[in-house]
C-alpha cells in the first residue's frame, strides 16, 4: 500500500523537497567557513565560500561574479534535469 498509494500521492511534495534539498546542499557555506576557511589546500572549499573569498577578501568582484554565474548555471541545469525526469514519475490529481 505504501508503495502503490502513499508514494504516488506524495510525489509532488517529494519533488519540491528534492529540488530545494539539492539547491540547499549547493549552498554550504557556514560550516566550512567557521571551521577551516577552505581548509588545508582547498580540501574543504565550496563554491559559495570560493565566491565569498574572491569577492570580499581578495576584492575581485568580476571574477567572483563569473564564478557565481557558473554556480547558477550548474544549479539550473540540475533543476531542469530533475524536472525532466520527474515528468514521468510524478502523479498529479487532475
Amino acid at each position, binding site marked *: 500500500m505504501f508503495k502503490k498509494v502513499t508514494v504516488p500521492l506524495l510525489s509532488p511534495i517529494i519533488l519540491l523537497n528534492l529540488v530545494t534539498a539539492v539547491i540547499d546542499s549547493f549552498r554550504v557555506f557556514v560550516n566550512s567557513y567557521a571551521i577551516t576557511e577552505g581548509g588545508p589546500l582547498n580540501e574543504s572549499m565550496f563554491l559559495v565560500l570560493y565566491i565569498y573569498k574572491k569577492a570580499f577578501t581578495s576584492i575581485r568582484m568580476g571574477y567572483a561574479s563569473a564564478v557565481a554565474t557558473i554556480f*547558477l548555471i550548474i*544549479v*539550473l541545469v540540475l533543476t531542469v534535469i530533475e524536472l525532466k525526469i520527474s515528468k514521468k514519475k510524478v502523479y498529479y490529481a487532475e
Partner: protein
Amino acid sequence: MIVTAFKSSYQTYNELDKFWPDPWTIQNFKDIFLTTPMLSFIKNSVIVTSTSIIGTLLSTTLAGYAFGRLKWKGRDAVFMVVLIAMMIPSQAIMIPQYMVFQKAHFINTLFPLIVPSWLAASTKGAFYIFTIRQFIMSIPHDIDEAAKIEGCGYFKIYSKILIPLLTPAIGSVIVFSFIENWNNFLSALIYLNDEAKFTLPIGIQYFQTQIFVDWNKIMGASIISVIPAIIVLFVGQKYLIKGVNLSASKG
C-alpha cells in the same frame, strides 16, 4: 555543547578524559557578558529579526493575496517568475546585491539585513509567497463574495477577512522567517564591519581568533543564541495547531 559551556578553560584543554565538568562553573557566562559586547549583539539580532518578520508578513501576505485572489493581466507569468526565483540560490546573486546596497550607502548598517524582507526578497521570500498563495487558494471564494456584497473593498477583504483566516499560514511564515533571520550568517558577515553592529551569529565568531579558540565561551554564546529559537519553535507549534483547529471547525 552544554557540558563544555560549564567547564573551565583549564578543564577543556587538560582533562580530556573527563566528560562531565568538575566543578560546574558559570564563569564563562559571566565573562561573555563582561568582556564582550554580547548585549549589543543580542540587541542587534532582536532588531533585525523583529523588523524582518514584520516586513516579511506585510509583503508576503499582500503578494499572496494578489496572486491567489485578484485577477490581473499577466498574473500567471509573474507567478512563474516567483517560482523560478525560488529555485535560484541567494548566494548566486550576492555580489550584485552587495553593489546595490553599496550604491545606497547601506554598508555597515543593519538595513541590508532588513530591507530584503520588506520586499519579500530574502532567501526564502518566494517560498513564503508560494505558501500563502496556496493557503489563500484553499479558502472558499464565497466568503470574499459575501464580503463584497456587504460593501468591502479589496483592501478590506484582505485585512478583515483573509488575514484572520490565514493564521496557520502566517504562523508558519513567522517561525520560518524567525529562524532564517536569527541564523543569518552570510549577509551579516558581508555587510557588517563594525563591532557595534554585529549580530549574534558573527558575534560568536568573536571568540575564535587565529591563535586561540576559546571553546568554552563559544559554547556559552551558542547556548544563549539557541534559547530564543527553541522558545519560538515551541510557542509557534502550539499556535500552529490552534490555527489549524480554528479553520477546520469553521468549515
